């Protein structure tokens, strides 16, 4: 099996047993999410669990065949699945992911995935050195932050001087079957995936690896805490066989030549996803220009940075954003602003806190404080120092209380929306003072009232979808408008070129990209959402192509502006086939994604999902996304009344609850699910070779009715 390490590690924490599974049995699921969902299905015996802290929950950490092979922006990601923690009512079977070098190291040690079952009676960490797996006492690590824990583990594993030992000898652990290329030694530090105090306390727990690779959404760090699992450390000295190394390298070089901006003459205004050159996506002002790009193993992007300052290393995107609104109220210079922002990010990394909840959660807490209901001696007692909001001191107090279940953190650990109800603040979900849009998750920054595929995909799934397949249209277009730059492509050309890539659901149907009021509840938009969910479930979350770079549908670097996605020279399937020796097409992968998505849905239905639950927070229906409230324009391709394509500002509208409900019927029909319940039918599941799921649903009395003809 080219691309695979060949074995799956199964950990029974309750009995402290270690089992080895053969990856070949699960080969049909690809890797990552598909592999994880299949393993979850097999080993989680009670799929009615609605809180991931239940010891019956099963968490799977899964790699893909591409990990560790040099596939551009598809080598260093890792997927984690299991029932989540902290959402609204039911915490669904969910996913999260992170980058870095953990997935590659896991494969170099000989493992494709780790299945985590049960609950240890005392804190443990898992020490993987090639084929040797040991559960070790973690009492001395419990309570330590994520960085200290990793350093302690590095010292344990042959590096008492930190990074000063040049080689780590693993010869005596070497498996003779691994072959002559395995030298049994490495200069690398073990890759460690760890929880901090937040995970230990089962409160907004994130999984952290190295300085800044975090897997936050879903609350799976809290799941580890509930299992008394502090860390998994892995060091390996093996390698991965690639079916056609020449084809892999050729495709990588072709990607660079054809689709990525030239270093000699970079086009900084390009419209593409794979194309931009390395640049940190730190969201606040950078406190210094003295930095190096930093990326996941094998990536061509470099979306993070390491600074010469001793802080902010490897943090990017959300964790460098959530506090900025408040920092600007106290900072006296951009440099001070950047310093507080990055140090606050560091705190989130060290506590192992999922900072995503703070993106809209902190403004809500501020709202409660300003209304006079939250504070010392108030209806919601809190000793947070609101007079210091924006300072690093406030950030640390807040992060500490959320991570340790103290102050407001006591209630919020059970989820923000449940807490709003407990505090008598349900009205805030109606007014929009609390912007948690779907399943108790914060709104991401792509409001469902404007950006349909993001909102619809989230509410039909398990959490904030966090899949950026299409919204580059909005960001590139809006940025061009903001700078009064020439629009790189007319809207009809943009949607036409992209629609060429939309097989099997919407090939050459540009109307799926029509985000207008007239089209927002149609079959066309349902097909767009299906394509995104199915594409992502396989190519992005199972093959583990990075969300920041793939799919590449439209690309001004390339001739005819066609992106790399699905291309014969550097498409996703080209890389997959070069590594595995398969002969997949892009559509084959999407079909696999549909199967995985349907398995996920079967789990959600067993957990209790019904179509009546599938609704946004009330403010999405009851209030408008105010025009000019924030950004002056939110431009998307739309058709006007005459059918002409125009870039149109989509602010100023809300969703219609009744029409959205009717749209779900269209979506369910296309998926082959019972429109009355949203439950899958036996016919659909059997067509997808998921008859075993149909049996389980039937036994639970939750199988959808077949459409009467």
């Amino acid at each position, binding site marked *: 099996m080219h691309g695979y390490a060949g074995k799956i590690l199964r950990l029974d924490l309750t009995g402290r047993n270690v089992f080895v599974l053969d990856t070949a049995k699960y080969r049909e699921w690809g890797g990552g999410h598909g592999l994880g969902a299949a393993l979850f299905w097999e080993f989680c015996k009670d799929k009615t669990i609605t809180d991931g802290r239940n010891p019956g929950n099963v968490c799977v950490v899964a790699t893909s065949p591409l990990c560790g092979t040099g596939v551009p922006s598809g080598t260093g990601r890792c997927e984690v699945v299991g029932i989540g923690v902290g959402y609204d009512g039911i915490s669904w079977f969910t996913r999260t992911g992170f980058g870095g070098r953990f997935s590659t190291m896991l494969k170099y040690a000989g493992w494709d995935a780790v299945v985590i079952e049960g609950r240890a009676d005392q804190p443990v960490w898992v020490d993987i050195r090639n084929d040797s797996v040991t559960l070790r006492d973690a009492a001395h690590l419990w309570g330590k932050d994520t960085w200290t824990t990793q350093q302690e583990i590095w010292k344990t594993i042959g590096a008492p001087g930190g990074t000063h030992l040049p080689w780590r000898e693993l010869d005596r652990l070497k498996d003779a079957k691994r072959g002559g290329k395995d030298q049994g030694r490495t200069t690398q530090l073990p890759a460690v995936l760890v929880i901090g105090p937040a995970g230990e306390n089962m409160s907004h727990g994130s999984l952290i690896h190295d300085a800044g690779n975090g897997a936050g959404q879903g609350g799976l760090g809290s799941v580890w805490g509930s299992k008394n699992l502090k860390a998994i450390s892995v060091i390996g000295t093996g390698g991965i066989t690639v079916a056609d190394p020449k084809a892999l390298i050729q495709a990588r070089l072709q990607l660079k030549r054809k689709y990525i901006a030239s270093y000699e003459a970079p086009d900084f205004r390009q419209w593409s996803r794979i194309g931009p050159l390395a640049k940190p*996506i730190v*969201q606040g002002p950078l406190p210094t220009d003295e930095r190096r790009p930093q990326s996941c193993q094998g990536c061509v992007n470099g979306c993070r940075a390491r600074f010469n300052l001793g802080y902010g290393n490897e943090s990017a995107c959300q964790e460098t954003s959530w506090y900025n609104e408040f920092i*600007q109220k106290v900072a006296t210079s*951009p440099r001070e602003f950047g310093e507080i922002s990055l140090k606050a990010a560091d705190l989130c990394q060290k506590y192992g806190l999922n900072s995503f909840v703070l993106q809209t959660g902190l*403004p809500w807490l501020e709202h409660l404080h300003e209304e006079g209901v939250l504070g010392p001696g108030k209806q919601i007692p809190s000793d947070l120092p609101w007079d210091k909001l924006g300072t690093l001191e406030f950030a640390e107090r807040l992060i500490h209380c959320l991570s340790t279940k103290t102050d407001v953190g006591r209630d919020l650990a059970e989820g923000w929306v449940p807490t709003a109800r407990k505090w008598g603040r349900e009205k805030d979900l109606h007014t929009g003072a609390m912007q948690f849009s779907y399943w108790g998750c914060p709104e991401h920054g*792509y409001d469902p009232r404007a950006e349909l595929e993001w909102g619809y995909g989230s509410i039909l799934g398990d959490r904030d979808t966090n899949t950026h397949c299409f919204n580059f249209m909005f960001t590139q277009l809006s*940025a061009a408008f*903001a700078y009064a730059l020439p629009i790189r492509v007319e809207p009809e050309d943009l949607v036409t070129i992209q629609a060429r890539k939309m097989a099997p659901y919407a090939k050459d149907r540009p109307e799926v990209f029509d985000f207008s009021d007239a089209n927002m509840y149609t079959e066309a938009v349902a097909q767009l959402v299906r394509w995104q969910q199915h594409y992502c479930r396989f190519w992005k979350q199972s093959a583990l192509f990075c969300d920041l770079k793939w799919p590449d549908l439209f690309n001004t670097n390339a001739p005819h502006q066609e992106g790399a996605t699905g291309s014969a020279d550097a498409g996703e399937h080209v890389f997959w086939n070069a590594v595995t020796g398969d002969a997949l097409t892009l559509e084959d992968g999407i079909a696999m994604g549909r199967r995985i998505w349907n398995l996920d849905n079967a789990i959600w239905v067993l957990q209790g999902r019904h179509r009546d639950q599938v609704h946004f927070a009330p403010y999405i229906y009851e209030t408008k996304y105010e025009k000019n409230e924030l950004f*002056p324009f939110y431009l998307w391709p739309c058709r006007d009344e005459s059918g002409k394509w125009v870039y149109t500002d989509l602010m100023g509208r809300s969703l219609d609850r009744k029409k959205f409900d009717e749209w779900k019927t269209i979506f369910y029909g296309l998926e082959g699910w019972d429109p009355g319940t949203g439950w899958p039918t036996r016919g659909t599941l059997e067509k997808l070779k998921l008859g075993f799921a149909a049996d389980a649903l039937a036994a639970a009395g939750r199988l959808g009715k077949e459409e009467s003809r």
Partner: protein
Amino acid sequence: MNFPLSSPGEELALRILGKVAYQDRLPAGRLAPRLGITRGSVRGLPELHLYLTPDDRTLPALSLERLADWVEQIIVDGELASRIRAAVGASASYVDGCIRVRELVGQRLQQARESLAQHSGEPGERKEA
């Protein structure tokens, strides 16, 4: 349009350098590729000046027209509001408008500091640009 704004009196200078009530805040988010539009607000001109500092990774996300109204009605600085409207009207783009407004606000902040310093007999405090 380069003639200076008239020097603010002490009362106006305090408002220019002060912080308005929460309910009077100006919605002001940020557009960041990958993250989208994050919500936010501004509660004073010093904060606005920092908020509008250009960088090459994100864009301020606010209505410049609404900003002028806010300066007029909440900060109660009609002269600055007029100059903001003129600057926005003359700008080549939204980003250009943000830069022009930032320059104006920076000048106004400096005037306010100097005004207060004169009233207190102390030299005006400077902020890093």
